[in-house]
């Protein structure tokens, strides 16, 4: 069990760093066990430093920087044993335009092997999707799903044609 955790941990760390450097276009991040001699109980320390900035405690990072750091780590864990699908629920909410682009490019890199289901309000994310489902509540309190619209059915600003 300890061996498995260590193996997994090294993989998670490597995936985390790669994903982080992609989403931040550089910068550096690390993940380590506070107490390597007691892996099953040890705290897991995390550190992240966007490009050009001095390393600091995670709490001082901005909302968007934290979201990208967390996404790098969550995705890093996911990649150890990837599922055929990955649901992302409004993870793009705190991101600015350029970070949305990098987020989209990350999904496009992995979409050959993973079906992504992205819940979003962001027009740029919607535009980048291959399929779109709309959920509505015409009758209050009762949901239904209205049809699929392919990307080419949208006009330039992302609105339904």
């Amino acid at each position, binding site marked *: 069990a300890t061996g498995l955790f260590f193996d*997994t941990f090294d993989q998670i760390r490597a995936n985390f760093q790669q994903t982080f450097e992609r989403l931040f276009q550089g910068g550096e991040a690390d993940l380590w066990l506070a107490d390597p001699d007691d892996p099953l109980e040890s705290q897991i320390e995390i550190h992240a430093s966007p490009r050009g900035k001095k390393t600091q405690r*995670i709490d001082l990072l901005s909302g968007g920087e*934290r979201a990208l750091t*967390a996404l790098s780590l969550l995705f890093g864990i996911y990649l150890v044993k990837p*599922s055929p*699908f990955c649901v992302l629920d409004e993870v793009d909410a705190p991101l600015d335009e350029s970070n949305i682009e990098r987020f989209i490019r990350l999904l496009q890199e992995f979409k050959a092997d993973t079906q992504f289901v992205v*819940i979003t309000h962001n027009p740029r994310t919607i535009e980048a999707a291959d399929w779109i489902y709309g959920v509505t509540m015409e009758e209050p309190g009762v949901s239904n799903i209205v049809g699929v619209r392919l990307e080419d059915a949208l006009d330039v600003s992302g609105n339904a044609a």
Partner: protein
Amino acid sequence: MKLKALRLHGFKSFADATEVQFHDGITAVVGPNGCGKSNISDAIRWVLGEQRPSAIRGGKMEEAIFQGSLGRRPVNRGAVSLTVSNEDRLLPIAFQEVELGRTVYRDGGSEYTINRSACRLRDVVDLCRDTGLGANAYSVIESRMIDAILSDRAEERRAMFEEAS
């Protein structure tokens, strides 16, 4: 393995039988606040065997049954089924397509099915083990996990790692 379809009936705000088809690539799910999008990701977690009501924002599992609205009465059960293609036999079972089903009743108890045959929760868990499918496989990522995984209460982060291992 690929996701094929998700069906919901009586699960949270999906009072009526509803189906979502899945495709290759990136699928966006859009709609106004409160229309039911996160209920879909709850349904996926749930049908894969999620045991904690809090993971789908409830206090008890029976809160996932459609509770009624101003124009509709509550119902007595909530059901979700997830169909996946299995041509690569990632799931160790001799079927081209596998449908995992789950129904919850007013007493809080759940029933599980694999290809419409009744089974136990542990059958679903065993089937999904090591496939990356399964309630704890990090295949549903939501924004409240962001604060949890960066929490300076390091037990929170620890707990998330242990789920994944």
